[in-house]
């Protein structure tokens, strides 16, 4: 059913927090996501000409880099982009078959590939460009929040988190329940002022982004003009500067 479910009173609201302060833009989340999910719930994630002139394929994470601001306060920001598992996901309500749905119990937005007709309307309805079409299977694919990891009892408990979170070398990605005010993700959002992407469109994304910290650490210049204390080096500097 593509009508949005009424969340149960004690339902979870699972999602990610992405820390734009610490993300180093290494693409490890995208790669590990591809690795897990090409064998997971929405498998396979096809590639076309992976070693050819124009490599192309289905990925659930895309890592952009931006420059924000101008002058000394400007930042280079690495920006991982994936499904935000919105609370008001139009990608679900536009689906004519019921293939696209939002889970009542935890809010995860999924595609049932067995009944998807591949009309692509859900991808048009997503302002975040999070859905990618599988041309070979003729169905839409998207981030599953690693539903086959987070509830996977064959994995050790510490590993029951999405592949992107598990692999992040700079701990820039966190997974948890936003309905629990005591969860790590809720506390991070509260402490660091987590924001919604494109709130003006009204999709109410669950995933939150932590903006880069404004504070910067002052660093001393590495070289100082003629500033060496050693007399021999001063002489050398003079000779070499000629």
């Amino acid at each position, binding site marked *: 059913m593509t009508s949005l479910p009424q969340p149960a009173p004690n339902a979870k609201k699972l999602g990610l927090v992405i820390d734009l302060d610490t993300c180093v833009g290494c693409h490890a989340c995208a790669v590990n996501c591809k690795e897990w999910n090409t064998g997971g719930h929405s498998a396979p994630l096809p590639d076309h000409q992976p070693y050819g002139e124009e490599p192309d394929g289905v990925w659930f994470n895309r890592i952009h880099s931006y420059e*924000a601001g101008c002058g000394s306060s400007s930042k280079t920001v690495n920006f991982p982009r994936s499904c935000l598992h919105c609370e008001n996901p139009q990608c679900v309500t536009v689906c004519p078959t019921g293939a696209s749905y939002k889970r009542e119990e935890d809010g995860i937005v999924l595609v049932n590939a067995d009944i998807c007709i591949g009309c692509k309307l859900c991808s048009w309805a997503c302002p975040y460009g999070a859905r990618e079409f599988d041309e070979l299977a003729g169905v839409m694919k998207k981030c599953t929040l690693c539903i086959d990891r987070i509830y996977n009892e064959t994995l050790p408990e510490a590993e029951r988190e999405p592949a992107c979170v598990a692999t992040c070398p700079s701990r820039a990605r966190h997974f948890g329940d936003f309905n629990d005010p005591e969860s790590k993700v809720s506390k991070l959002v509260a402490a660091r002022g987590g924001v919604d*992407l494109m709130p003006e469109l009204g999709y109410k994304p669950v995933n939150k982004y932590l*903006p880069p910290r404004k504070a910067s650490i002052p660093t001393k210049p590495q070289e100082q003009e003629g500033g060496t204390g050693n007399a021999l080096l001063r002489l050398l500097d003079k000779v070499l500067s000629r």
Partner: protein
Amino acid sequence: MKPASSVLLLTTLTGFGYGLLAWLAVFALCGGLPDSRWFLPVAVVVALAFAGAGLVASMLHLGRPERAWRAFSQWRSSWLSREGVASLVTFPPALGFAALWWFQGPDSAVAIILGLIAGALGLVTVFCTSMIYASLKPIRQWHNPHTAPDYMLFALFSGAVLLALLLAAWTGKASMAALVALAAAIIAGIAKLAYWRFIDAQPPLATLASATGLKEYGEVRPLDAPHFTENYVLREMGYRIARKHAAKLRRIVILIAFLLPAVLAALAALGAAPLAASLVAALFTALGLFTERWLFFAEATHVSTLYYGR
């Protein structure tokens, strides 16, 4: 947005078909159709053939066309599903309209009632089609109050042109239908001009700064893209048309889709070679509305391409 020919055919052909069906019902009610047992059934079959061809074309857009029947299930939330349901339920009353007319003749009140029901359901289908586009919030050129009325107007206009052609072919004259087509061409053309004026003045939906949550840092500029080649999102949503071509194509649309058909409809109404005039008018309308629909897609921008600096 990428103008997929299957979707362009769907929206233009169903407009012709259901527009014609609606006018047939109105003309039947007003007694404006030839006093023939055959005209109306043939015309209804033509209308349903246009609509059916559009619906078949839309199946070609699907990744899994064999599952198309599943699209009838989610009418509670999805305009695409409602379009499917409405297009299908239009067929039985339309066929009943044609059959009763044939069996009972032009005086059959039941036939005319069935015709009005079919005509209304056909227009409901066109409305559902328009709402598929009008309801998509990430596309400002579609998500606005112009889209739905425009689709209805273009359907009524193309249906009137088609009816004028059928009447001219059957009776050798098409005065009333040609006048309706003339009026519809003028109104539809003005509506299209108003639409372009509207989208040209529209502010963007979002900025890269709001899309990345980096508003407080000021302007945000793209530095490195995630990938160097196009992906699905860029191919589907990032389709762009050069502004100079858009301006030229807009003039072509106004000329071919609205002006020329209006002039030809006026000629047909005046009785100057009605068949030739309405035939050429119908051909120009089809070509013009197809181009119009192409532009409707090609000029539409999707907010997700902001992430790529487009």
